[in-house]
């Protein structure tokens, strides 16, 4: 899949870039985050003396730590050594990057990355992802984007930010609520529900052009749109036939297929499986909202959640696991269901609300809404055990995040 095209406005990126605690560059973290981490040293990476180069170095260090796969340590304690330089010349910022195994001398990566001098952060994200991919053979997330809803202006608008919460850009100014944004599989389009024209309709935004079109405006609600892995279909909830049901819309032909038929229940929140064969969704046909799975061609739905008196907002992750929000002891916790074992694990436990989870492309991290004292912010958790990280640091409420695929 294509890398997400750096979203508009490097100007806006600049406005926000410095804000998020570029901590001292000599921090050494030893032994934190438990076993299974690879020790890595950036000490052989000599940044030039300028601000752009130093910012690159700080962001790279933070990205590697946030990836969850590395402990950034001193040179003598490291298994993986990053050597090279970051210098600015001729209107370009270049990172020469040589990544080796300190013990065996084996080389993971040897590459030169370049960006414009104002894009230190993006350059660092590129290098961090390349290191993660070369050493751990898994997708990096540093360059990936997150779309979310924010009420900074008092209205509920769409925003897009980086995986570290920086480079926040406002996308909509509708003056009416925006709901549940999701990405197209190539991360070049967004789908969301807006009351822009008085009714809940599904809109598509082409990010490169900013062009918006209404893709579903049937009578009643049009909501929860999620694009199929091949990008050709949209699963969504419609009520045009008399109550909220699940449908699949062919984006090109506009042909509509109804998947559920539950006269006395409401359906919501579809999420495609990575192979496009199944769809997870919410139905309240038993009297409380629970997560079900149905073949994307229709058929009999199978309930997969049995603990917690409400189970909502399923998100089918890239490795096949389904994250959802489960109401237990009066609080919403993020849970992960594994279709192979049919078991579920709670990955949050604090007595506050954790809602609307969305998997990162690495299948390890989950972005979600954390609500405490009726204030909502967006956080990232690590299913392998690292501490949660808060992404939004602004006034207003921030919620309904969706992590872009890559």
């Amino acid at each position, binding site marked *: 899949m294509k890398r997400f095209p750096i979203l508009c406005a490097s100007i806006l990126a600049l406005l926000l870039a410095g804000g998020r605690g570029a901590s001292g560059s000599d921090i050494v973290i030893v032994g934190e985050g438990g076993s299974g981490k690879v020790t890595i040293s950036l000490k052989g990476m000599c940044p030039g003396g300028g601000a752009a180069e130093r910012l690159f170095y700080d962001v790279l260090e933070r990205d590697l730590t946030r990836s969850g796969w590395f402990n950034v340590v001193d040179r003598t304690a490291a298994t993986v050594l990053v050597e090279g330089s970051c210098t600015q010349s001729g209107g370009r910022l270049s990172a020469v990057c040589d990544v080796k195994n300190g013990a065996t001398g084996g080389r993971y990566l040897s590459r030169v990355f370049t960006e414009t001098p104002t894009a230190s952060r993006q350059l660092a994200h590129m290098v961090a992802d390349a290191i993660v991919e070369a050493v751990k053979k898994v997708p990096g997330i540093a360059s990936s984007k997150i779309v979310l809803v924010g009420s900074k202006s008092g209205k509920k608008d769409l925003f897009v930010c980086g995986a570290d919460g920086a480079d926040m850009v406002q996308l909509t100014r509708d003056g009416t609520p925006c709901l549940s944004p999701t990405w197209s599989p190539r991360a070049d389009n967004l789908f969301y529900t807006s009351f822009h024209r008085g009714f*809940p309709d599904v809109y598509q935004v082409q990010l490169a052009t900013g062009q918006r079109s209404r893709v579903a405006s049937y009578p009643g609600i049009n909501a929860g749109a999620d694009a199929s892995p091949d990008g050709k279909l949209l699963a969504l909830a419609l009520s045009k036939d008399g109550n909220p049901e699940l449908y699949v819309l062919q984006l090109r032909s506009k042909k509509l297929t109804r998947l559920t038929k539950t006269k006395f229940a409401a359906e919501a929140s579809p999420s495609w499986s990575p192979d496009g064969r199944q769809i997870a969704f919410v139905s309240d046909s038993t009297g409380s909202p629970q997560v079900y799975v149905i073949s994307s061609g229709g058929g009999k739905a199978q309930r997969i959640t049995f603990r917690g008196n409400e189970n909502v907002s399923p998100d089918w992750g890239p490795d096949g696991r389904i994250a959802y929000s489960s109401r237990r002891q009066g609080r919403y916790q993020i849970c992960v269901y594994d279709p192979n074992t049919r078991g579920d694990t709670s990955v949050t436990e604090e007595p506050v609300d954790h809602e609307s989870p969305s998997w990162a492309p690495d299948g390890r991290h989950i972005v979600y809404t954390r609500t405490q004292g009726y204030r909502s912010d967006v956080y990232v958790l690590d299913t392998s055990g690292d501490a949660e990280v808060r992404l939004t640091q602004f006034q207003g409420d921030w919620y309904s995040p969706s992590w872009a695929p890559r």
Partner: protein
Amino acid sequence: MKKTIVSAVFGVVVCCLLIGSSGCTSVDEELLGADGDVLIPLGVDGGGEFPLGPRADGLPGEPVADVAFDSVAFLYDSFQIADSERGKIEAIADYMNRNHDVTVYIDGHCDERGSREYNLSLSEHRALAIRAYLISLGVAGNRVLTRSFGEEQPLDLGHRESAWRQNRRGEFELYR
């Protein structure tokens, strides 16, 4: 001994129920959230689906200003119309059966708790449950439209059961 413990626990639960939201909110919420294992069919003839008519952008005429109707209240996570609320819908049906040029919008709403996406579906289901009842009372389906907002338009911005109760509602807007 075991029996004593059981009845003691039962006593506590009953007390919590009686105290309601003031002392023991979570128990109250759990019970409300778990309601509805038995689903009451919509409408008089066992319910059914009444497909919505085509939607035109813009409002179906001028707002009717000389009458107002009470909102219909709902329990948490429920779209069932309680017996106490039926009279409100019957009043509208009565008005609409006497005023054939009137079209109604039913706006469904939820309280702030729970998934926003599910709440949008639930609020629409509330509006459609009211619509089904209106249809069963003789109002033509093409005169009853829905426009649901999930939890996006609370009446009361508070975070207590008293606010939530106000916000779980179906509102009526009449046009002529």
